[in-house]
């Protein structure tokens, strides 16, 4: 059983395309890189804080932690254009506010959800975009270019493909990035949709977060090859492999896939190798410590994406040697980490969202009968 996580080398990076001389990351400014670092912290803080809120009994619903997978979300979203589309799923809650967040995080006109909307959704309040009809990650926003998922795994890939077909007809040049776990690649619709997208060269980038486990089932019982990216060959499309712990490697591979699509060459798969830090959901934390060998957990969490990013920035000279001392969240789990371990602007940003959610009302019960069909006004 070899489930080496986070060990994917960049050399193995592309199965169908060569790594360009100048990598997409080489075009990032110092400010961009520092922003990326802060976003990784933001994604981590969101997760840590929600776990704490849930443990304090202030949240309901199942929490699917993205701890240890933040580099995938930040790296995949950072280079997208404002009007590109995304389709996050259960483990990608931070993606809803990370989309198009670059610059002023509170910009009202940006193409991503505000932290207020996301928190209102998590807390099940009327100010959530879906007015708390469905839970947690089952939201989206047509105006913000986020596809609304259901529970049914891989179910949004055909939607993304149809959307990109229509976008092209409408004269657009958008790309849609969908997120899926490695387990979800076993669904028929995963293949059916990518096949269709490949036939029509549709701009769908399928990011596969390969965290080695699908609930209580290890990767080898769901996938016949150790690299999900290998499936791309069957559709004649690029299959990239990224080190999911390294935000810059994810950024490189996703941007290569995005550029491929932008030029009209169609879909790609970007597999990001990572490891699920906790249980499948918070209800599964205790069991996951039993069905997964301890050594595997320790190994899988060895390369915290915060630390990988920090070391890259230090090597680039973007962070001084004392940066290691600045914040202390790196390597800490949700019990160990406190507010002091995060940049203050990150903590403030989420605090505002939570305040907003707490004062937002519950939707009125009678709303339950509405919008089964379109309503005029």
């Amino acid at each position, binding site marked *: 059983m070899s489930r080496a996580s986070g060990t994917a080398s960049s050399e193995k990076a592309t199965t169908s395309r060569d790594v360009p001389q100048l990598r997409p990351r080489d075009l990032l400014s110092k400010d961009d890189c520092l922003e990326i670092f802060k976003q990784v912290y933001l994604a981590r803080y969101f997760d840590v804080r929600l776990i704490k809120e849930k443990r304090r009994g202030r949240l*309901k*619903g199942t929490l699917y932690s993205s701890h240890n997978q933040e580099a995938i979300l930040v790296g995949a979203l950072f280079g997208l254009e404002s009007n590109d589309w995304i389709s996050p799923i259960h483990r990608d809650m931070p993606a809803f506010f990370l989309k198009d967040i670059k610059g002023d995080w509170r910009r009202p006109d940006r193409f991503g959800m505000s932290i207020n909307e996301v928190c209102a959704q998590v807390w*099940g309040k009327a100010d959530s975009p879906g007015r*708390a*009809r*469905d*839970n947690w990650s*089952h939201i989206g926003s047509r105006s913000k270019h986020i596809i609304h998922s*259901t*529970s*049914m*795994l891989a179910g949004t890939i055909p939607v993304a493909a149809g959307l990109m077909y229509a976008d092209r007809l409408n004269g657009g040049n958008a790309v849609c990035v969908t997120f899926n776990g490695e*387990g*979800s690649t*076993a*669904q*028929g*619709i995963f293949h059916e949709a990518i096949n269709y997208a490949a036939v029509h060269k549709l701009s769908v980038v399928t990011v596969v977060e390969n965290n080695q486990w*699908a*609930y*209580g*089932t*290890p990767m080898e*019982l*769901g*996938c016949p090859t150790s690299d999900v990216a290998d499936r791309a060959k069957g559709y004649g499309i690029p299959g990239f492999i990224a080190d999911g712990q390294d935000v810059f490697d994810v950024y490189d591979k996703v941007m290569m896939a995005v550029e491929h699509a932008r030029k009209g060459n169609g879909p790609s798969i970007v597999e990001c190798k990572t490891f699920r830090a906790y249980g499948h959901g918070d209800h599964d934390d205790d*069991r996951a410590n039993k*069905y997964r060998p301890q050594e595997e957990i320790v190994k899988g969490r060895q390369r915290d994406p915060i630390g990988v990013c920090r070391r890259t920035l230090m090597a680039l000279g973007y962070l001084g040697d004392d940066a290691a001392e600045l914040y202390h969240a790196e390597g800490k789990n949700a019990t160990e980490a406190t507010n002091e371990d995060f940049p203050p602007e990150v903590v403030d940003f989420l605090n505002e969202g939570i305040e907003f959610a707490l004062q937002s009302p*519950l*939707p*009125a*019960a*009678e*709303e*339950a*009968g509405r919008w*089964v069909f379109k309503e005029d006004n």
Partner: protein
Amino acid sequence: MSAVANPTQIVKKNYVTAIREALFEEMALNPDMICQGEDIGILGGAFGVTEGLQAEYGASRVIDMPISEACIVGSAVGMALAGKTVMAEMQFIDFISCGFDQIVNMMATYCYRTAGEVNMPVVVRGPAGAYGGGALYHSQMNEAWFCNSPGLKVICPSTPYDAKGLMKAALRDGNPCLFFEIKELYRKREVEELLPEEDYVIQLGKAAVRRSGKDITFVSYGQNVYHCLQAADELAKLGVDAEVIDIRTLVPLDEDTIFTSIAKTSRLIVVNEAPMTCGFAGEIIARVSEKAFEYLDAAPVRITRLDTPVPWVKPLELYVLPSVEKIVAAALKTVKY
């Protein structure tokens, strides 16, 4: 078997244990039985229904499947073709939609289109039902889709005793059965009961009278049976004596028990948590209207979910679902009809 039963001590068992015992016992009795589903082996199932089963019977008979409901059902059909009996788990019954074609077109019709050459001893089971805040895709009762697909038996137990006896009957029936387990009942203390030590089955197509009364008949299944019983208690205080019938299996349906009751009470309310339009409550009322019309003194009533999905947050969820209050109010109106 030892993993679940403790013969030295007689204790009440919950609903999930009853189902688990049925699986353990049938696996022991039938070496040709296979269990398959997502996370049922190493994990023991999302709800622990198959806990310990793989340790007892091995990974070749208790199979952790890739996440493909279509394949979980479709491969069960293939196994049945080779003479196996299969329990196929849907992690939530809501996800059964992803295996729909293999169920209604491949499995359900197999016996019919082969003129009886091939039968399908397959039980597709999974946690179902609302009232737990599971939202749109973890709350469904989609039994009507399958009642409307000839060739499938449809079962929905409300007690541990029934859950075990019906599960065993389904696994021995030789026909494809859909088994709706009420997840809100899995570990509910109030419904725990003593189970017989010896092997038993409950015949498919036999309803149970849960409370006898003379003024009005409530027909229901699943967790709504308890809503009906509570409503009956409320109504008793108001001088209305309600009879509560738990049909237990939808296909086949025990019409006689329903008709016999209505012959006595002349009034009927059917309660189920699935949406109203084309739901099973409508089917029961249609049969009563066709075959027992003359017994009725009042228009029969359906109390069901509104024709909406199940929304997430509590006030919205409760708004769309049947409740004790809704049943009591409808009963008071019906007895005055």
